[in-house]
């Protein structure tokens, strides 16, 4: 980036264009959502109250939020130590892992879910028949690329070797080193990875639909097919919800390490 004092007029122009690109659809959706279901006229909040009175709204929302949380926790538990280890001990394997991380990108979800359903057929029903089992496992795989590339960037921004060796020479064990020294310094990367994972889980439709678990995106789809104005209201609400969830993640992640997160980028 070029560091310049003041902002050139052209950059305001582009900012405006970009802003419009994002906000015009939101605004249009908002106006649409205010129309009355009976008369098609403006302005009523009836669509919003309708959504809020749907039992499925609350039910599927809860499932999806919990699923997102579970996916984030499992992914961090698996990928943080793994990527740490790769950076520290087998940096030669980094490109291999990076390649593996690309696979969920290139395999279409529809192909993946068919494969997964097949592979896991015959596993116990507490896993196969539950969103907490099968679906979470699938979402961990979907989240892998986002986890890997965020965390990888985080690990590359710190001197993993020196920090680890400094910690060990001071008497710290591996777990202590990971939790007290490494983790706080890749916190912002872990947060970014968590945001992306949350967004994926809150929006994933294909796998949930084909494996027949009732998640929030499926509820949106169901409403979409039946009710035009409430669907618009629901879209906006899910948008706000996802942002709200990200914000709370940010707050949780920052609670102890506000300065740390800022510092990591500053070195």
């Amino acid at each position, binding site marked *: 980036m070029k560091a310049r004092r003041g902002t050139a007029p052209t950059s305001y122009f582009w900012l405006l264009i970009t802003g419009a690109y994002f906000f015009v659809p939101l605004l249009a959706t908002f106006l649409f959502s205010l129309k009355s279901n009976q008369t098609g006229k403006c302005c009523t909040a009836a669509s919003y109250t309708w959504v809020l009175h749907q039992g499925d709204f609350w039910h599927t929302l809860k499932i999806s939020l919990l699923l997102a949380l579970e996916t984030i926790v499992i992914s961090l538990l698996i990928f943080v130590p793994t990527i740490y280890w790769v950076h520290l001990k087998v940096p030669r394997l980094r490109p291999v892992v990076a390649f593996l991380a690309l696979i969920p990108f290139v395999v279409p979800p529809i192909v993946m879910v068919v494969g997964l359903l097949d592979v896991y057929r015959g596993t116990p029903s507490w896993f196969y028949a539950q969103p907490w089992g099968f679906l979470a496992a699938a979402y961990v795989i979907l989240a892998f690329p986002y986890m890997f590339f965020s965390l990888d960037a985080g690990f590359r921004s710190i001197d993993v070797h*020196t920090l680890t060796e*400094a910690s060990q*020479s*001071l008497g710290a*064990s591996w777990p202590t080193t990971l939790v007290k020294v490494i983790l*706080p310094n890749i*916190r912002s990367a872990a947060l970014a990875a968590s945001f992306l994972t949350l967004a994926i889980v809150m929006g994933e439709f294909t796998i949930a639909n084909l494996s027949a678990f009732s998640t929030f995106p499926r509820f949106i789809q169901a409403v979409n097919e039946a009710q035009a104005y409430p669907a618009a209201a629901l879209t906006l609400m899910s948008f706000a919800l996802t942002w709200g969830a990200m914000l709370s993640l940010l707050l949780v992640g920052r609670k102890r390490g506000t300065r*740390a997160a800022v510092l990591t980028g500053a070195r």
Partner: protein
Amino acid sequence: MAYLELQNLHREFAGGVKALDGIEVQLGQGEFLSLLGPSGCGKTTALRLVAGFDRPDEGRIVIDGKDITNVAPSKRDMGMVFQAYSLFPNMSAAQNVEFGLKIRGKHKGERASRVGELLELVGLGHAGDRYPHQLSGGMQQRVALARALAIEPRVLLLDEPLSALDAKVRVQLREEIRRIQLELGITTLYVTHDQEEALAVSDQVAVMNRGRIEQIGPPAEMYSRPATPFVAEFIGTMNRLEATIADPDSGTVEHGGVSLTVDAARGRRRGERVLVLIRPETVELTPADGSGGENTLSGEVIAQTFLGPVTRLKVVGPAADLIADVSTAKAATLPIGMKVTAALPATDARVLELSDPVAERAPELDPVGQ
């Protein structure tokens, strides 16, 4: 009795790089030893073996009579100071110093007072709350030193701790490291490629070359009695004359058609090829008067480098090129282009067997370096 012993350490990396090829070091308690050598000679590898970050293929590391070769680094009680960027970025200076004490389960009050003492010791009593990115490079290294000392390590290990700092801070900080080391009486292993630094702070200097120690001894001895041509060139600047022993009884050697008398050549085998080493400060220059006295070479001054109280002159002649350090006042009388006579000292010159002249040359020698 030796407190820290490195016995016959060997370490070969994948690809056949022999980083260490039989390292032997004995270090008494409270002694300060520098491992000195050009980049790539295996200094860091040796230090990492002592810290436990790497294991030798062969050999042992013994501390206070106990073999620690296979002990985990976290159990060795070694204080390590790295080249740079070793402070934990998420912790303040005080928290960095406190880290090792927390690991050791020390009580809060004890930790706080110890951290205070140590920051005071390294001259950062006022900066405990600052984070690494708010500290200068020199300050960061002070904190790293305090952090390493906090655990009361058995040995303090420093791997080129000053190489990322500017010259002035470097000199200041090396003196402080030495002061603190003497004050605490802590056994110290110090790695550097800077011979001036090594000579300035150490009790013992070990000059390394290609995974081996060429010579080990007190700084003054290393300077005045280098045992190999490599050491001679690495420590200070030397004039090297390849010569043949002409008369072992009188100590006469022949170099480029000129006969020179060198005391140290006495008793050598007639006809033996030797290397005569002469410090630049022992060469006497006078304006040429055509006489060509005893033990002299002739030449022309082609360069002058001002080094403060002395000026280094480069003299090129038919028989040999020489470097001579003369007082700056005298250098004014020997301008570039002047024909001079260089008198070589019979007593101060060293004579070494000439084995492999090309390979023995120190790789990074700056002709005017100090």
